[in-house]
């Protein structure tokens, strides 16, 4: 069956070179109180892969994303069952320090949320917290390289002491990405990182994701199917708390196996 929407070709899309499994989920269920939000998710995420989660609102894609660095822990009344591993280690192991996990698996949120501090302090906070820089010069280097990688350096290098909140929405989101990069995570989770941004800012972030995928494993939630098609190597379609289908992005958009996936990407619902 052919798909009626034109799918943009993914830019610079590389096939995942190494077949190392970075993160893996087996039978993940999430409960909010009595309500079961996810019904047992199995998913492997390869190293240096960009994986997009798509699906209608309330399908559990953000919930699953937050399981990957245990941000669900911060929600009162939530409970996670099943197993999630990072490099083969169970991240829900009671002996695991969640702080260490979050230093390895960073997260960028839907709405840009810089700290109400200077641009410099926004970036420097994480490295300082984890003791990654011993001297001021090292910290300066981390701040500069993080901002450079986030493509923000040229725009803010003359005003590092100004509040991060004074930047535009797109700049704030890139600042948040730079802040996440600054602690050198291995996996970056992005929860609809462009939903609050205009098309130009969105374009910049997408380009950034593509560049970052060379060094990091990126998992992103998006409502924008074109975005998934543009940047993701793999796409996973969630619906009503189930992982309906996961596969190479091209396959998902051109040749979905499941009827529900087909209906969603052709705009029948969602």
């Amino acid at each position, binding site marked *: 069956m052919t798909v009626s929407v034109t799918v943009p070709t993914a830019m610079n899309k590389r096939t995942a070179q190494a077949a190392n499994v970075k993160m893996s989920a087996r039978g993940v269920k999430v409960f909010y109180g009595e309500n079961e939000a996810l019904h047992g998710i199995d998913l492997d995420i390869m190293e240096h892969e960009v994986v997009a989660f798509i699906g209608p609102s309330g399908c559990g894609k953000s919930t699953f994303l937050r399981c990957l*660095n245990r*941000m669900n822990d*911060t929600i*009162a*009344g939530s409970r996670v069952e099943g197993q999630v591993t990072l490099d083969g280690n169970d991240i829900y192991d009671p002996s695991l320090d969640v*702080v*260490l996990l*979050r*230093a390895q698996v*960073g*997260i*960028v*949120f839907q*709405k840009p*949320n*810089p*700290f*109400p501090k200077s641009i410099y302090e926004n970036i420097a*906070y*994480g490295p300082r*917290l*984890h003791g990654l820089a011993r001297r001021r010069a090292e910290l300066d280097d981390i701040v500069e390289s993080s901002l450079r990688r986030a493509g923000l350096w040229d725009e803010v290098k003359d005003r590092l002491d100004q*509040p991060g*909140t004074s930047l535009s929405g797109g700049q704030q989101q890139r600042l*948040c990405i730079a*802040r*996440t990069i600054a*602690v050198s995570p291995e996996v970056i989770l992005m929860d609809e990182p462009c939903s609050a941004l205009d098309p130009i800012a969105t374009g910049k972030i997408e380009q950034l994701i593509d560049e970052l995928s060379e060094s990091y494993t990126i998992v992103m939630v998006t409502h924008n199917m074109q975005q998934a098609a543009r940047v993701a190597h793999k796409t996973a379609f969630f619906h009503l708390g189930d992982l309906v289908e996961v596969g190479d992005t091209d396959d998902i958009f051109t040749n979905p196996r499941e009827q529900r996936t087909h209906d969603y990407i052709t705009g029948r619902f969602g």
Partner: protein
Amino acid sequence: MTATNFDIADTRRRARLDTIQRSLNARHARERRFRFMGLAAVVTGLVLVAILFTSILARGLPAFWQATLYLDVYLDPGVIQVDERPVRQAGESPAQFRERELAWLNQLGLVNWNALIDEALKAHLPGEVESRQARDLRALVASGERFALRERVAANPELIGQTINVKMLASANVDVWLKGNIDRNLPDHRQQLSAQTREWADHLEAQGVIRNAFSTALFLNTDSRSSPASAGLAGAFMGSLFMMLIVIALSIPLGVASAIYLEEFAPRNRLTDLIEININNLAAVPSIIFGLLGAAIFIGYLRLPLSAPLVGGLVLTLMTLPTIIIATRAALRSIPPSIRQAALGIGASRVQTVFHHVLPLALPGILTGSILGVAQALGETAPLLLIGMNAFVANVPSSPVDQATALPVQIYLWQGNELRNFFEARTSAAIIVLLGLMLSLNATAIWLRKKFETRW
């Protein structure tokens, strides 16, 4: 479309617009009425506050100036018949010396100081003052002033034999008479001063011997019953100060710490729900109940002293805690969760998230709430009555366990004083002092809020 059809459509359109217009008029009228009522409420409030302040200021401000006598007193050695001031001799123990010194002070106490003051007054009065008029003469001067004269000589015995310049408070009744706070046309038997004293007071004022001078007594003296003119706020002020220090030192750290724990760390369960409900209810408990609790626990059970600022401070701390906890929790809750998520997402621990990000942002709200809580404690009267802080205390407390009273209690005591026409003004003056302290506390709160406010 035919012309008729067009007309019909147009008529309908007009009719619909008319209907909307009519309802619009009614809506606008409602809005105007509502705005007018709101404005009227604000104006009424402002007018009432203005009346309150004007009446307090009009009554209280004159009390900051008091009828004062400027006299040259001859320290007649014939009247002050005392030995030389004892000097400590070699081989004398401190106790022995102290004993001799006390004996000497005793001699000074027996001196007829009034006679010296009388002589100084007579110099300014017309004609001969007969001995039967001694009472009329004494009525001019505040009775406590003879002790002030004695203290001056005791501190400086070389003055004996000299004529010294003395500033003495006129008696409360003279102050009332000269300020016109009593009807001058009342018949003699309804006046507080004899006809002779009144005449003399007027005469001395005309001579410039009695002047209206700024009353330092109001600030430097403690309360006085025998000499109402020299009653002051020093004791009450120190009592309030000690209490506020205790309240600040205990309630702010305890309250803020409990609020942080309850809001950020405590698990949500039956127990924390119960604690939360209790804290909210405690904030609504009448303050006098806290006084009863303080009397029962701190005084009855722990045997802490009566009338002590320590106990008052503890009681007020209990009373202020819920206010501070509630204000702090509200301030913490107002910090958007995105900030917490951002910090947690980078790998900050919960404690780091709270102390690095949430608390600094909540600080203005916490400070405002705490200072308003402390200001409320400063003005609290009822619980203090139950732990004996309404006792008459003639000394300035030098520590939190000394007997003391507090500013609002002093106002309450003066308000009930039988010397109405003197203490009415005194009460208002004390209210002005208390309000001044309140205003400065609130101004501090606003200043701190502005200082720590972070713009988003």
